[in-house]
């Protein structure tokens, strides 16, 4: 999985601009992060990871922000910190959002492997960095594939 490295305070308007919210997720995803990298949606590959600095996902409650990243095949989000609302949204969609104090050491384009249960990331240079464990009640939801699938399972 390739790392796409972004900066601090990447907001939801940059992740998915409001003017595309009227469309379905397929169309919205084409414009994901276009204000900072117009080619992101075409170059990103299934299993890639977005790595950001502080406060990733600041701004709107629009769930299409993590949904577009998930739709493009992003397997996990790694950041020094997340905006609280965005963090809840990502986990509710079953997209792991990993709070990693060493996020800024990760270089753009490097290959990463993530051990979700072990709460660690192996970098291309062999360094292993840890992330904060996702709270147990949320980890169970993420394992189920998100809140909708989790509710579906509970109602059966």
């Amino acid at each position, binding site marked *: 999985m390739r790392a796409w490295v972004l900066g601090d305070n990447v907001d939801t308007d940059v992740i998915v601009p*409001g003017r595309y919210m009227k469309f379905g997720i397929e169309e919205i995803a084409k414009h994901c992060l276009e204000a900072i990298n117009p080619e992101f949606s075409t170059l990103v590959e299934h299993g890639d990871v977005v790595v950001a600095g502080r406060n990733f996902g*600041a701004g709107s409650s629009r769930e299409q922000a993590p949904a577009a990243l998930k739709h493009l095949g992003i397997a996990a989000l790694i950041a020094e910190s997340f905006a609280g609302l965005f963090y*809840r949204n990502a986990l509710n969609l079953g997209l792991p959002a990993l709070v990693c104090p060493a996020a800024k050491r990760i270089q753009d384009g490097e290959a990463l492997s993530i051990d979700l249960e072990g709460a660690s990331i192996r970098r291309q240079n062999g360094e292993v960095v840890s992330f904060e464990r996702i709270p147990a009640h949320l980890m169970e939801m993420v394992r189920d594939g998100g809140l909708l699938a989790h509710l579906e399972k509970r109602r059966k």
Partner: protein
Amino acid sequence: MKQTLAQKLVARAAGRSTVTPGEIVTCKVDLAMMHDSSGPRRIKPMLERLGAKVWDPSKVVLLTDHYLPTYDDESRKIIRITREWVREAGIVNFYDAQGICHVVLPERGHLRPGMFAVGGDSHSPTGGAFAAYMFGIGATEMLGVLVTGEIWLKVPHTIAMEFDGGFAPGVSAKDAMLFLIGRFGLDGGQYQAVEYRGEAIRKLAMQERMTLCNMAAELGAQTGLIASDEVTAEFLKSKVEFWASDDDAPLLAHHRFRADELAPQVAAPHSPANTRPVDEFSQIRLSLAYIGACTGAKLADLRMAAQVLRGRKSTVKLLVAPASLRDQQAAEHEGTLKILVDAGAELLPNACGICAGYGERLLPENMVAISSVARNFKGRMGAASSQVYLASPYTVAASAVAGRICDPRGMLQ
């Protein structure tokens, strides 16, 4: 155990006598607010997939504000789905084209001190001005609330923002928020509860308090809160419970400011955290002034603009989108609206519109604008090359007259 206002509100909703910051609790939801963008069009397919119904339709408030007026097939479809779902789901509290959700919700008496509420919009902390614990959630989490009537919460710490004295003429809640966001950053709230207190806050009218709590979102807090008092009761036109933090309840941080020393503030593109005093921007020439949004076009905001614009003309394009129909009617009745129109304002519908990047009036390439909205993120209100400065309605109005960013304090009438 001494408890903050946030702890008391969460404890009540969790069925507990006290709660401790950091613990995870499940709260019963007293009110769930949704709008046309994050509401039925997203919720309905998920409810159908689960074969579930809304846990208590009387606790849901639905409003249309993002896709009005409709302007293409997509927006017409979204509004149609919203209206149809009202009947299907048996929603009794539906406000169609009455204005922006955060303003209409308290205007129609749905918020009471002591409540625990969620909203499908990031500016939902606005409700905290009524000493209600209210915060924004995404569509799937809203589905969870609609099915179960509950939501999990990590009990927040409280960051107190205390303002002593009183704000000077021409300085408003918006200036205080831009100042705080500039000082502490977009994540200064740490997704905890921010509580505004002090003499200057107690003197503020409800709509100004709403502006403070609304922009707790830009401060990165889960919610913004203000203790309920006689001002709350007067706005709601009824007796209310008085909810407040215990004296000496433990705080994560306690910041104190002299309100009288605060100058008008302006946030430069592309972040509400790029704030400096207004006089540092006097060289910025403008082509648009926009007074709009839940945070910047309530009746109180329109009055601020009118206080500057009376008998003057805007020298740039001036757009005004009153935040609610009732506020617009009140402004019309008292003459405030006429002052704005006489100054050259073009009135836009009572909807989110340009602020959220919705509708047909988006900012073109390279447009330089000043606005009373909450956010100026790159590309939010239109072209990524457009430049949006944030300021109070006073400052937006003064700048519209001057054609460049201008301190309103010399223009108050």
